[in-house]
């Protein structure tokens, strides 16, 4: 059994307050979370049910023009420019007049882009010293998982974490979130974003969102464009698929009628549209995800799936996962909406506060150095049985 009440809240209050700061990629997020002290948390395994109250959840995205990705240096500059204003708004929205009331300040230590992570870490360190509030470094992936568990109340799900920088199938076992399968090259969101760049459509608000919108209007949904299907054991590979579909798109734009997949060899008539490519790419990639997720569920004998990360907002992915789960003994799919799927500060506060309640805080600022590589299974999950 786990005692989540081992560290009492400040000033003898009956609730905890945490500030969360996220800036590992192009989203900058600040959020404030409140946990009430609940007697049954002293001796239980209820970290997915903290009765968390979200006092504020504010986000600002560094937007690049369609056809361009975000670069670390420019993204870090965006975060530095906005983080103070965003934090002020988040504190005001939470009605927190005296910030030293906070029990803990949580920030993303990794994984992510070094420069943006660092810009937020500098801010977090300064606040911590200014207000004398302890710091907790949080693994970004664990943040997604804990927020998803709290929102959906899924107790022990297989987690599919799909975003612009990560693609992992995760299940909990013996105090670690273990990685069952993952991408061997690029992340799914990266694959979708880069295809979107080829199509010159924007990547707002989440990876693959505009591809999803185009795919809805695909005229030939009954005949999929055949793409490479690259599941390797429990892992995936997506760079080859991207290269292939990029090539098809370029042939389409240049009206290369020699391409027999896109144009009828006799009449030269176009058989496939951009929307069809988007649809086929989604179906193909998501089928791969569903396959490895199902295998992980069989391994750990679970019938719940939790989808987290920016690509997790995709309704088609949620549908496909749901139909797999229905076929498997009444399984359930849990997903959250864009407030929590897309990177945000609240999820960092949620995971960080759980860490804090188990007595895990920074004792030396050397522990706050950010890291681009920080695997999900490196974190010791003290707050679960």
């Amino acid at each position, binding site marked *: 059994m786990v005692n989540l009440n081992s560290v009492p809240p400040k000033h003898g209050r009956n609730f905890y307050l945490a500030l969360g700061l996220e800036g590992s990629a192009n989203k900058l997020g600040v959020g404030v979370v409140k946990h009430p002290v609940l007697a049954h948390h002293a001796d239980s395994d209820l970290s997915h049910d903290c009765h968390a109250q979200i006092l504020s959840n504010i986000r600002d995205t560094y937007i690049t023009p369609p056809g361009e990705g975000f670069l670390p240096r420019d993204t870090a500059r965006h975060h530095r420019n906005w983080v*103070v204003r965003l*934090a*002020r708004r988040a504190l005001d929205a939470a009605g927190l007049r005296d910030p030293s009331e906070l029990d803990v300040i949580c920030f993303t230590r990794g994984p992510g882009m070094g420069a943006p992570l660092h*810009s937020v870490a*500098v801010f977090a*360190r300064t*606040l911590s010293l200014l207000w004398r509030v302890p710091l907790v470094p949080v693994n970004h992936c664990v943040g997604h998982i804990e927020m998803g568990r709290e929102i959906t109340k899924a107790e022990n799900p297989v987690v599919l974490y799909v975003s612009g920088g990560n693609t992992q199938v995760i299940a909990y076992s013996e105090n670690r979130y273990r990685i069952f399968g993952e991408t061997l090259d690029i992340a799914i969101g990266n694959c979708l974003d880069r295809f979107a760049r080829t199509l010159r459509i924007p990547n707002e608000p989440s990876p693959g969102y505009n591809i999803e919108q185009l795919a809805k209007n695909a005229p030939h949904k009954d005949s999929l464009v055949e793409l490479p299907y690259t599941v390797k054991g429990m892992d995936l590979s997506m760079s080859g698929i991207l290269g292939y579909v990029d090539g098809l798109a370029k042939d389409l734009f240049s009206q290369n009628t020699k391409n027999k997949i896109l144009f009828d060899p006799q009449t030269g008539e176009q058989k496939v549209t951009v929307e069809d490519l988007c649809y086929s790419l989604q179906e193909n990639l998501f089928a791969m995800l569903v396959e490895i997720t199902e295998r992980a569920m069989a391994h750990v004998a679970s019938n719940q799936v939790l989808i987290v990360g920016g690509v997790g907002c995709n309704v088609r992915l949620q549908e496909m996962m749901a139909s797999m789960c229905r076929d498997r003994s009444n399984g359930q799919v849990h997903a959250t909406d864009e407030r929590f799927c897309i990177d945000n500060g609240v999820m960092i506060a949620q995971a960080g506060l759980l860490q804090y309640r188990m007595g895990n805080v920074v004792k030396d*600022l050397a522990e706050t150095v950010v890291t681009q590589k920080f695997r999900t299974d490196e974190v010791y999950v003290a707050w679960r049985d």
Partner: protein
Amino acid sequence: MKSARSPMLAHTLYLEVPFEDSTQAEIAVKVLEPDPILRPEDFEVDYSSKDRNLCISFKSIDDRVLRVGVSSVIESIKSIIETIDEFK
């Protein structure tokens, strides 16, 4: 690993940034200190505080590395000052 260590870090710069009081200058030192230098054989930084000043001395192998290193530290200092201004 190169065995010939720290040959010539001949390009140097010394900066003093005044803060409102010594506590703020000490905060700045503590915030800046933990981050490791990517190429310690080419670039060195030393942070300290004297009265209400943040004192930084840079040493570098050439002027380009010096400029890049210094400007990145200055960006962080700007961020610290803005944070202190807003939330002190």
